[in-house]
């Protein structure tokens, strides 16, 4: 339903039912950040290149700057805010911490979600597979050294259930 040019959009975010208003042209990333207050998802290029706005929609990796909020009606969305269990970091987050996989932290949410999607389909990726999977997430700080090490460490943690 559209009122004053804005539609009510109902989504499930990180397991919680949420709703907010969005104009037809409102990007999903703006809806998440401004309407739902989930500012962990970042805007880097508005062009689908940098990967900072990566979220998961119904399990699939998506550039939230290339999708309209109204298209996410009744979808299940995962953002970085949903990864940790209370005080306990997700093993992927823990691995990024231990392996110096982040510096300024701006690209980190997108990298974490991309890593999660990768390790769900391939629990033991080679370095080459990791690099290919992460190639759509630009990091300007790390030279990817810590990032790749973190994904390898995260894969180990998840395989070993630690």
């Amino acid at each position, binding site marked *: 339903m559209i009122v004053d040019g804005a539609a009510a959009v109902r989504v499930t975010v990180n397991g919680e039912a949420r709703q907010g208003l969005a104009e037809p042209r409102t990007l999903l990333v703006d809806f998440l950040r401004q309407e739902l207050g989930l500012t962990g998802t*970042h805007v880097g290029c508005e062009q689908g290149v*940098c990967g900072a706005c990566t979220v998961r929609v119904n399990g699939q990796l998506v550039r939230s700057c290339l999708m309209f909020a109204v298209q996410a009606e009744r979808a299940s969305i995962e953002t970085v805010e949903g990864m940790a269990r209370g005080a306990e970091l997700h093993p992927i987050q823990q691995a990024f*911490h231990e392996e110096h996989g982040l510096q*300024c*932290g*701006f690209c980190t949410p997108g990298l974490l979600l991309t890593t999660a999607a990768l390790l769900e389909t391939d629990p033991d990726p080679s370095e080459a597979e*990791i690099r290919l999977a992460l190639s759509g997430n*630009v990091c300007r700080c790390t030279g990817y*050294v810590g*990032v790749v090490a973190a994904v390898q460490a995260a894969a180990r943690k998840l395989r070993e259930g630690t």
Partner: protein
Amino acid sequence: MAQTSVEGRPDRYVGARLPRVEDARFLRGVGKFVDDIRLPGMLHAAFFRSPHAHARIVSIDVEQARALEGVVAVLTGADLADFPPFVAGLPRPEVKANERHVLPADRVRFVGEAVAVVAATSRYVAEDACALIDVEWEPLPVLTDPHASLAPGAPLLHEGSESNSFAHIEFEHGEVEKAFAEADRVFSKRFHHGRMHAAPLETRGIVAEHDPGSGGFTMWTSSQVPHLTRSLLAHMLGLTYENQFRVIAPDVGGGFGLKIHLFPEDAVVPYLARHTGRPVKWIEDRYESLAASTHAKEIVMDLELATTSDGKFLAFRGRYVGDAGAYAIYPWTPLVDSLVAAVLLPSLYDVPAVRFEVDAAYTNKCPTGAYRGVGWTSGQTAREVLIDEVARALELDPMELRLRNTIPSEPYVSATGCRYDGGSYAESQRKAMEVLGYDALRERQKSLREEGRYLGVGFSPFVEPGGWSGEMAKRMGFPFDYMDAARVTVEPDGTVTVTLGLHSHGQAHETTFAQVVADRLGVKVESVRILEGDTAVTAYGTGTWGSRSAVIGGGSIMRAADEVREKLVAIAAHAFEASPGDIEIYDGNATVKGSPDKSISVTMIAYTAYFGAFVGGTRPPGLDPALTATRSYEPPESYANGCIAAVVEVDVETGQVELQQVVVVDDCGIMLNPTVVEGQIAGATAQGIGGALYEDLAYDANGQFLAGNLLDYLYPTTMEIPAIEIHHIETPSTVTEGGIKGVGEGGTIAAPAAVVNAVADALSPFGVTIDRTPLSPDRVLSFIRAAEGR
């Protein structure tokens, strides 16, 4: 200092690989970047920008934009006619100061220059309104080449100037002409370094709020220099008192030098907040960032090297024409590229005579300013590529030639006056060769060539000026001093708060500075909190850039902590009736040497200082109980050093370069936290690789900007950056507090030359010479064709 081992912690925090304190918020997505800030009633700004490289503004019609629903204000240059311009200059006679109006009323000088601003209820509406602004332009002649800009008869880009150069600077030391006249061989080369963007993933952004009660402002800004922003902007905005202007640089998503400048938006957004009476947010979009913030490193360099027949360097001559863009960037000026490149011309080579000439030429392009490694990157690339060419001409191994000319490891003063504080100038080169397995690599190269495959190896040994203080600034030609303070406070419960005027945007200050102060005071690192980025809260400082924070922050913390520690010791000594010299503090407890039963926690010492007696002790009479000290540190010149090596294979049919291996040997003196140091090195090296192979802010001959998005300005990804292998040598500085040297720029300074040399080495059977970056596949093929005379 005697220390007792405590389980679960390193004996000394400095030098330990502690994981980062700041990670917790970023990993959870709860960092606070400027765009995460929302204030009640906040408006959103968008700028209308010039589509022309050079044009007169005949008229601007903003009526339709003003009439759009949701638009609250539209301002043009005419509305800000009384607003003072940025004036970029330096107190030296060769420099002609340059004015830049924050919204020009009559003339634009580059594509992307802001000419109007809209404040509206959303960014979407503000951009809708920008599309309704109608400007009548009268195009003017365009200059895009810095040499053409300096040519006699070129149109002048700034009224009242006699030439298009911001400064023409000459320097000579030693008998240069004689050396060239008597040399066995003279080699020369022109190198045109590409135009780069610092390209932090978070663009710039501002939220400004005006308080009509006090007349003051609060401004959140994605900046590396919050205090400097306050000092430079407060009076421009008409404030009588600088301290009415609070600048907060919250979490900042990368800076790399770009965010040390002042930009028109920094003045216009707070102005707009006062004008509308509502908070205003502006977040730079990627096009604005690429087109209209700062560009960097484009210098056209003509180098000459005089040698003996066996390759001993006798003298350098260099002419550095920097492409300054349309305005002298404020406040640092475009000399951060061309002048500093020239000062570092002799680098780590033992050469007695140097002459250079420097210009910074205006063109109709985005202004150029600081980006990690500044002009040192360009100068290093030109010099090291020339040295490889000299080696080929003299039929010497390039590393043999370098090592013959490398300065000794002891402190050394270069021909341009740089006071190197000792390092591993030759050792780092040998180490890089050893790690690479240099001889075996040459064998492999030979056998692959027989199969028609082209492997190449390139080296780039470097010195890296760090800890940018007044002494370093003056050495590099900038006659300034700086004041950077740390305030160390022990709180009532013995925890420690440190504030600094530096700023961390990826460098992990909350971790590394806590390590420094915890060691110095003898407390647990977990009890330390580091605060930066808020001018209302922290000690003053000029921000984080120029590899200055470890040296200056570390040194100022050490000095302030020593003062506070004296008070802790005095209270403990008084309590135990012991001599202060016998008090040791470690892991949060003070003990008396030789009397292990006499122990008191720092918590109890602090409690005593704040509130008087504790069980068994009192304040020493006459002691000022304030457990706080503020100290600054202006270090002497210090230089890290190292060597980067790269191995590539070139596909000579497509021109594609496969970067197979990168080795970095780095010596930045005492490391506060090797993990953090390695992160800095890897990131800097990746940016250098980007400059060598991918990143190029291209303009056409009409000054149209061609790289305004991330499909045209190419950040390297995981697929373009190989595993970067890092090795350390740790030669403590002989001159700084704690033996610390700066780190973080060497990779960007030196990696491009390593990559370019590797490509040139791979293609040496064709007789290829490389004279520009980046090395796109097309360019690589064109170098081969040129060598083959096609």
